[in-house]
């Protein structure tokens, strides 16, 4: 690109490295704290851990019921991500192609929901009297539904990028509407769906309030809720808390590292066209 061609590349690197450090250091700091004993932390909080001390992880793992929570987190995240992607992709296609009337109004409504007020009590009533409260399926539906609008919104932008010629080719084929979406559109949307999936994964994995409200059973709680419980219990013991943070964050960071190529290309190309 011409415009910054004159900027010395070393300067660019220096700036980018500084910003990257700003993003990375806080996380490394937490890891450092997690490796310390409480006494060590209280006396010299910022020094590099003198020895690798893994007791905090063991304690966090045990106290936070992390095994059950971990399993639940996986279930909720996987199911609601798959569900969201499927349902959102199905809805995005007709909206984007204006196959139904009132798509404009629908998109407007979707826009408004970005900042609609929550209604915990009404939703709780709904969950309760449909026997969805405190069930795996109920929570999966809830976490899929709660920002379904945003996901559809993003995918609508992506579908616009898929040339409509394909539709015609398919219609000649006599391809059924659903089969067409599932077999032709869905594969073409792969990068977009990866993006939506990652947003959804981040979203569900990190949710800490909804599990408390809609899952009354401790055995059904996900990981972040376990961590949130920790905040109170170990507010005086930052080392264990830090270990808990590391445990919760690591799987997500791994998924991110694995998928980052798609996410970064996907987040951009999708949200734009929407």
């Amino acid at each position, binding site marked *: 690109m011409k415009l910054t061609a004159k900027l010395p590349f070393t300067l660019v690197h220096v700036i980018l490295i500084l910003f990257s450090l700003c993003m990375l250091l806080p996380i490394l700091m937490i890891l450092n704290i997690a490796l310390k004993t409480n006494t060590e932390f209280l006396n010299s909080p910022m020094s590099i851990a003198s020895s690798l001390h893994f007791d905090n992880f063991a304690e966090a793992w045990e106290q936070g019921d992390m095994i059950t929570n971990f399993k639940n987190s996986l279930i909720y995240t996987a199911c609601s991500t798959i569900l969201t992607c499927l349902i959102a992709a199905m809805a995005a296609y007709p909206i984007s192609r204006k196959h139904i009337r009132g798509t404009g109004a629908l998109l407007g409504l979707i826009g408004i929901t970005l900042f609609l007020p929550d209604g915990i*009590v009404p939703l709780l*009533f709904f969950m309760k009297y449909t026997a969805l409260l405190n069930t795996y399926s109920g929570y999966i539906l809830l976490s899929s539904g709660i920002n379904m609008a945003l996901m559809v919104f993003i995918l609508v932008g992506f579908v616009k990028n898929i040339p409509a010629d394909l539709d015609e080719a398919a219609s000649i084929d006599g391809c059924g509407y659903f089969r067409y979406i599932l077999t032709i559109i869905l594969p073409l949307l792969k990068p977009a769906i990866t993006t939506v999936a990652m947003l959804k994964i981040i979203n569900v994995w990190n949710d800490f309030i909804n599990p*408390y409200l809609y899952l009354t*059973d401790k055995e059904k709680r996900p990981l972040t809720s376990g961590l949130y419980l920790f905040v109170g*219990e170990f507010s*005086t013991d930052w080392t264990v808390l830090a270990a808990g943070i590391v445990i919760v964050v690591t799987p997500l960071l791994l998924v991110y590292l694995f998928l980052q190529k798609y996410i970064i290309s996907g987040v951009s190309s999708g949200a734009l066209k929407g």
Partner: protein
Amino acid sequence: MKMKRKKLASLVLTAMISSAVLSACGSNNTNNASHNANNGAPTTEAAATASPDTKEPVELRIINWRVEDKEFFDQFNVKFEQENPNIKVRYDATPTQSYQQLKNSRIAANEVDIVAGDYKTMNSADQRELWMDLSGQSFLDNFKQDALQNLTYDSKQYGLPWNKVSLVAYYNKQIFSDLGLQEPKTWTEFTALLEKIKTAGIDPILVGGKDGWPMQQIVHTLEPSVVRGANSDFYGKDNSNVMALTSKFTDSEWLEVFTKFQTLSTYFQKNSLGLAYGQAPGLFAQGKAAMTIDGTFSLTQINDAKPNFEVGTFIVPATDDEAKNKIGYAKIGGAWFISNKSPNKEAALKYLEAFSQKDNYQLYIDTVNQFPVMDGITMKDPLAEQINDQLSAKDAVDQFTNIQNSGSTYSLDLLNKVSTGDMSPEEAAKQWQKDYEDSKANWK
């Protein structure tokens, strides 16, 4: 196309209406259930039905904000389930910040049987309506009368008290002996002592001011002796004097509290407003300050941080008058309430009964290291035992905000501003009185 749209609209509408109808039916059902529970098991009899005559499986839903007490409830709930095989305990604790939200929603949806609360949980008529009257239950007899009294209104017993909490100054005996200091007996001695510590280059008082309420604790430490020591009927019954404006926060008693708070705030550690409360006990235990004024509930945290010096305690002498200083602060740390609409009242009462048994209660006190509100319970921790003695030498009065009106919990900002010197004690008192009178529309 148009028809399709109508069809869809009606579909959605049907879905919504049916859910509304369902919810209406549902609430009727639960109402009936609760009525049955009310009529079928008059409260006095319910205790007698302790023998498990119904073998129907029951899920007992309990919520609490004391995440710190996990260790006890993990043990106790298992034990309770073993003794009552038909009851499954679904115990839930969330940190204080989100507890209110949890509580409101669970009560509204009638998804809870036992609720942890405090005096605020029963401070208005519509709130009291939510709770079952526990009067006459035999397990109440185990508790101290004054503790029960705190959770009584119009001779109905709404809550079952857990423990008593108070405020003390924890001090570092090492630093005190190095500087040749004694536990103070009067306010003058106390301020002189603070000055000495400060001159020696040590932070006199460690406060976790970021969370706000630790600042309030300092006021609660001063208020009983200063205000109620001077005028025991300052607030009047149900705050009547304050509401009638015959007692004002600009009166000399409260002005003295604010002035003394300001004096103490000059001895807080630097940047005390930024320190998270949770860190204060640990830092004190590491010898970072000579004292910390904190709740008796922080004892465990201080012990857990393994101080390498001996910890002493005294109750802050708020005046120079021994008689006034005798009035001390104590409040109920928390209480159980049973939801009036609970379909599982019998099981809930059983749970409270088990909690009230001496051996279980002893285990509770031992694990959470709080002060018992039951006779014949001992504390393992020698320091706790010592605080208990110090407290029992006092005439304990409840937190002055016990009878809640909006505005009677003075705004934390005022305290912050006094401590940073942005506001004088006089201005703070005036502002508080003004805020209080402005909120008149909300008085209950």
